[in-house]
Structures are given as structure tokens and as C-alpha cells.
């Protein structure tokens, strides 16, 4: 039984993304427990981002875990390391459970499950679980200087799209309805 109250996704407005990679740095800092980049670098901690700004046809496109409902990575994970969190709908990893089979890396359509040689396990976006639990935005969202990245409730997104579609339909209708009168 899903107890989740809403479905959220990270949406990126590509028009606003300047490929600054602030989300990458913020992500790596957050998952090593830092806010200050200098402290993070000097600490010698292993810093790995779980969101990537990927170059495609001369532009930067942020790519990360989409927290799929029927997540292939969860389906193939033989050790139960990856699971769908019933309360939030986010795909999370249980620390220490990963056996390094890399099946999730093979099946993820977004390349969002990454094999990390140093830790010997798979790393992926956890939607900043601990951080949002404390009432804050995910760090990649807070770090975006152009606010290209937003957390969106899927239900809201559908409603917005429906409104846009309604407006388009009406405009089309009025344009075509008026013509024969002339």
C-alpha cells in the first residue's frame, strides 16, 4: 500500500540552465555533509555528485534520477539495496546492502545509478532525503542561481498543463469560429 501523499519531481527549465554546474557541486557537498566548498575540499572527503550536467549538441542538460514509479533499478536489485520509499515515492539506497553487481547501472535509462569505485557501491540521487526531512529544499535546487531547477508536484504539473491546453484550444476555437462569418 502506498502511503505517499504527493509525487514530486525535479524539473529543469532548459531555457534557464546556463550549465554552471552549481547543482553538481552542491550535490557532492551535501552528500559528504558540507555546505562550504573550501571546507569540503580541505576535508579530503570523497566528493561525488549524483546529478550531472551533460553536454548534448552544444548545450548542457542536467541529468539525474527520475525516481521512477516502476523503477527498473529497484526491480533488478538482487540485494534489496535499492527500494522505493513508500512515504515519499523516492527511490533510495540502503547503505551497506549494495553488493556491486551493477545491474542497476545497466538498466537505468537515465544513467543515474553510477558505480563508485572508491566506495565500492552504487551512488544515486536520494532527493536529499535527510535535508528535505529537515524542511529544506534539496541542495541542487537551492544552489541553482537561475532557478532553472525546481521541485514540482506532479499533480500541479498536470493541472498547469491542462490549463495551458485549455487556453490553446480556446484560442484555436475562437480563431477558426470567427472566420466563416466574414
Amino acid at each position, binding site marked *: 500500500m502506498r502511503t505517499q501523499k504527493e509525487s514530486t519531481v525535479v524539473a529543469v527549465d532548459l531555457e534557464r540552465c546556463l550549465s554552471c554546474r*552549481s547543482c553538481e*557541486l552542491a550535490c557532492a557537498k551535501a552528500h559528504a555533509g558540507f555546505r562550504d*566548498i573550501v571546507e569540503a575540499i580541505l576535508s579530503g572527503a570523497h566528493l561525488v555528485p549524483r546529478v550531472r550536467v551533460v553536454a548534448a549538441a552544444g548545450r548542457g542538460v542536467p541529468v539525474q534520477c527520475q525516481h521512477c514509479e516502476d523503477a527498473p533499478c529497484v526491480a533488478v536489485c538482487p540485494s534489496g539495496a535499492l527500494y522505493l520509499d513508500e512515504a515519499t515515492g523516492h527511490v533510495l539506497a540502503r547503505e551497506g546492502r549494495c553488493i556491486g553487481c551493477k545491474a542497476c547501472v545497466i538498466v537505468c535509462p537515465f544513467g543515474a545509478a553510477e558505480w563508485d569505485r572508491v566506495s565500492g557501491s552504487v551512488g544515486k540521487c536520494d532527493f536529499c532525503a535527510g535535508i528535505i526531512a529537515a524542511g529544506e529544499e534539496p541542495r541542487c535546487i537551492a544552489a541553482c542561481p537561475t532557478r532553472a531547477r525546481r521541485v514540482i508536484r506532479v499533480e500541479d504539473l498536470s493541472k498547469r498543463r491542462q490549463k495551458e491546453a485549455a487556453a490553446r484550444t480556446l484560442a484555436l476555437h475562437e480563431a477558426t469560429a470567427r472566420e466563416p462569418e466574414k
Partner: protein
Amino acid sequence: MSEEKQPKSIDKASLELLEHAAARGLELAWDRYESVLPQCDFGVLGICCKTCMLGPCRIDPFGEGAKCGVCGATADVIAARNLARHAAAGAAAHSDHGRDVVRTLLLTGLGKAEGYQIKNVAKLRALAREFGISQDTKDLSRIAVEVAEVGLADFGRQEGVLRLVKRAPQPLQKKWEKLGVAPTGIDAEIVRVMHATNMGVDNDPIHVVRQMIRAALADGWGGSMYATDVSDVLFGGPQPIRSQVNLGVLRKDAVNVVVHGHEPSLSEMLVAAAQMPEVIKRAKQAGAEGIQLAGICCTANEILMRHGIPIAGNFLQQELALATGAVDAMVVDVQCVFPAAVQLAQQYHTRLISTSRKAAFHGVTHIEFDEEHALSSAQKILLAAIDAFKQRDPSKVRIPTQKEDLVAGFTVESIFSTLGGLYRPLFRPLNRGITDGRIRGVAGVVGCNTVKVTHDWGHVEMVRELIRNDVLVVQTGCSAIACAKAGLMRPEAAELAGQGLREICEAVGIAPVLHVGSCVDNSRILLACVEMVKEGGLGADLSDLPVAGAAPEWMSEKAIAIATYVAASGIFTVLAEPFPIMGSSQVRQYLTDGMEADFGGKLAFEKDPVKAAHLMIDHINKKRKALGLGEMLYQPAERARKVAVPAGSPGKVR
């Protein structure tokens, strides 16, 4: 790190106006800081290269992605080049200011500078002696012209070594020569950094840093030192002088003219013009009691040091001064003037007046100042201020009551005249205080304000900790203004000092924290160190001295130049905000460690001002030990946390 909101300032006058400004919906630097967050971490680390348009290239600080830019420049090369350019810009600012002062001396000698005169003949003669200029002639103007010509030639010098560099102790000069960092011409060294940091020129990070050091030394032992020395010749050598500081110096009943910026040439003339009977008469006709001059930033320090003109505030108070609604004219020249001051002044009757041919502000009154018509320009500015006074809206005026007493005006020549007396060597009492174990050492605490640290807190907290540990503190710039506001530059502040330092301060009647001037006057601190070495008993080089430097709220490129030349002169220097090079382990390692083997001085980065103070104290103790000095006479007293600490947890770094 906690995200708790830090107080914006520890200064009561500033807090009052911050609240007032918020209620009026005025936008200040702190608000704009919030709006630019998050700031770019690539910039923080210094690993974004925009040197050529193969880029911008950014290096992956986590070592997985790009390891170098398109050209092959690594994080180390990129960070070194970026930093060198910052330092060159800072050196350029001080040195261009210095050039203009020397040029004013030339015009004064030629009789072309209206209103100026040689006020300090002894210092002019001393410079002439140093430069090997014949003084057979009784004609002072002739000597002034020759001194100025020698000085100007140093700016354009193409070979050999800058003249003032020869003031450094021999061992230090030898180190510079050996490392190839002894500066030639002031302009040339800055140009050379700009060339070397072009795409595909100097590709050895440490070599780039050394070129940066050479340009910085051309500032500290060149541009800045000329600015200080020649200002003393033209405007008089400062002597200990009483004055007041903080926004409470502005007056309801007077025409308030706030000078803000850095160069003393114009403000000197404003001081003169404000005393002219016809100007005062005009002010009275307009309904004012008189003219109140007050300063912000280093212009303030220049006229405080020489004339005792009160200080309205430091860097982060420039907008707060405008928000009093009581400033009739804010007269600006160069450096540290917020572009935002224009819009803020427009909310009031305040006339923002730009004066420098180097700095234009859109939509303000421009009264261009040139040395040949200096007094007339100054008069014109004051008349504009009087005109604006008539439009002042008393209902918008909010002047805080806070103003604090201070004593300023300490220089290498005057610093211990009180201490040594007229016929005794000036630095002997200081050196003896150190060897006797009453004074642990000396610290120069300097620099700006930044919105990233609670305003004034970094300075005041550090300086209180230093004096508590018997470290005599000398200060310049906005740091000096911060501590003056906190009352640390009153002789009574001796009671906050450790027992040994307190005994000496009370015996001579000085404060444990001494104001030595503006940011170009950091050259005074270098020369004070030279005098300490010359006096004897404390080693043969600046790096032997039990001294340290710090900039607890720095933000400007000028501070990068200063910290670099101070460290390269052999003095351990602690900065709060790290240099933007932390993405390069090689540059970081050199500046914070490797430099010491080369120069005897190095940098450290520490945001907590008390921890930073202890880095300085530890360093001073290390030097005392190396000199074979005995234990301190007294143990430091318990730490009293009453004045400077804002409510909340420690570590007030925003």
C-alpha cells in the same frame, strides 16, 4: 555549519539604521548579498578560467571530470593566474593613487597646484637625501620638483630596482633578488603580470605566484609607500590627534559633507575650503550652523590622521550614512564606492558628487577635481552641498546618537614620540617592552568589511583577543574604524589589555590599539618593522620579528595585494575569507607553507577571529623563542566576553 541568521553588525548605530532602512524599504548591501546567493563555488575555488575564449573552462574540483582547460591549463595554473590578476589590480589601485599624489607634488613644486604647499619640509628633505638630490639650493620648490621627478620615474622604471625597496633590511632584499621578485618599475610589474597571465604565457603556477609577489612588492614598497610618504610631505606628517567616530558625528544643524573614497588630494582641499569665511557665511545664510565634514573609508582616515576630521563610518556604513537622510553631499573619488549609492542618494535630497576623472557614476553631479584648480573645485563642491542642505527634509532625518572618542595620527615618525621623547631613539621603548616581556609582539590588523562576516565583529573580536594577550595592535583602513567605534582607540582601552601591555600604555597614556592611517599607509607598518629591526635586539630581518598581520573582514583585490606583499616581506598574515585559490593544492600549499622557506612569511586562512588571533599569538611566541626572549612577565587574564560578541553561538561567519 548552522544556517542560523547572523546579526548584520555589532555596531549599535549601524543596527539602528539597518532597521530604519528596512522599515523604509531601502535596499542595502546585505539585501543584495541575499539576492546573489548562491555564489558560484567554481569562483570561490578559483578554478574557472575566462582568460581566453577557448573557454570559459572549469576544472572539476572532485578530480573526475575536466582536469584541465582547453589549452591544458590545470587547476593550479588557472588559480595562480586568476589570483595574480587580482593582486595586480589591487596593486594598480594603490599605485595609481600614489602616482597622483607624486604628481601633485610635482605640480606644487612647479607652482601650478592651486592651494597646495609643502607642509612637511623635514620629510621632503629626508626624501631628497635618500634619493641623492642636491640640497644646495634654498629653493624648496626645486627640491620638490626633483623628488617628484625621481618618484614618477620609479613608476615608469625599466631597469634596476625600485628606490624604496632599498629601505628593506639587507637579508630581505637578498631573498627578493635571489627569487627574482625584486620589483623594477611599479607600472611595469603590473603590466608584466597581465602579460604573464595571458593565455599560453607563464604556465608554472609557482612562477606565476612569484610574478604576482613582485607586483605586490611594487605596491607595498612602491606605489603605496610613495602615496604615504608624499602625502606626508604635501599635507603634513600626522601627529597624535583626538577626534570622534561613528554616524553620530553627523549634525542636524550643519551642512553635512561626507567624503568617501581614497585619495587625500581633494579632501585636503575640502578641509581648507570648509574653513573659508565666505563658505561658512553661505552655510549660515542657508540656515545651517556651519559645515560638518566627515569621512567614510580611507579618505576619512587620511583627513582624520592629519586634521582630526571625524569619521562617519567604515565601508559597510556608506549606505547607512545616506540612510540618515542628513547627508547633504557625499563626495566620492575612487575605490570602494558602491554603485548602489546613486539610487540610494536619489531617495533623499543628498547630492552625490563624483570628482575623479577615473570614476564616473551615471546620474550624479560631477565636479571634476584637478590639482591645478583644487581649491576652486573644493569650494564649488561645498556650495553644492549648501544648496542641497536647503532641500533637506527634517522628517526623513535619522541620526543615531553613537559616536566614540579616539586618538589617531600615529606614524613611524610620531608613533613613539610620546613613548621615546624627543631626543631618544623612537623605537627603543617598544623593543625594550618586547624584550622585557611586557609586550608580546605587534600585530597589524587591517582591511575592509564584508557582508559575509557580521560587520565589525571580525575586527573587534580579533583585536580584543590580541591586546588581552599583550600584543600591541596597529591598524589601518576600515579595520581601524571598526575598532575605534568599539572604543579600543581611547587610552582608557588599556584596561582591556593584558597586564604588561596595560602598564606600558598607562605609563605613556596611549591606547593599546593605534591608528596608523589609510590602506596605502600599510607601508607605515612595513617601515615600523624596519625600524624595529634597526633598533636592534629583535633579529636581522622582518621575519625575525615577533609580529603578525591580519585582515579579518577583507573583500577587495587591494587586500590580496597587501596580504601578498606583507607575507613576502616576511610577516605571517592571517586572512578570514580564503584567497580564491583553494581549488589548487599547489598554490594553496605554496601560499600557506612553501612561501615561508622563501620569504620567512606566509599566509593562513581562518574565519574565526579568535582562532585567527591565536594563530598570530602562536607565531609571535615562536619568534620570541627563536630570538631567545624570556617568558612574558604576566599571564593573560581570563577572556571577558562582554563587548564584541553578538547574541548566539560562536563562529559568526555569515
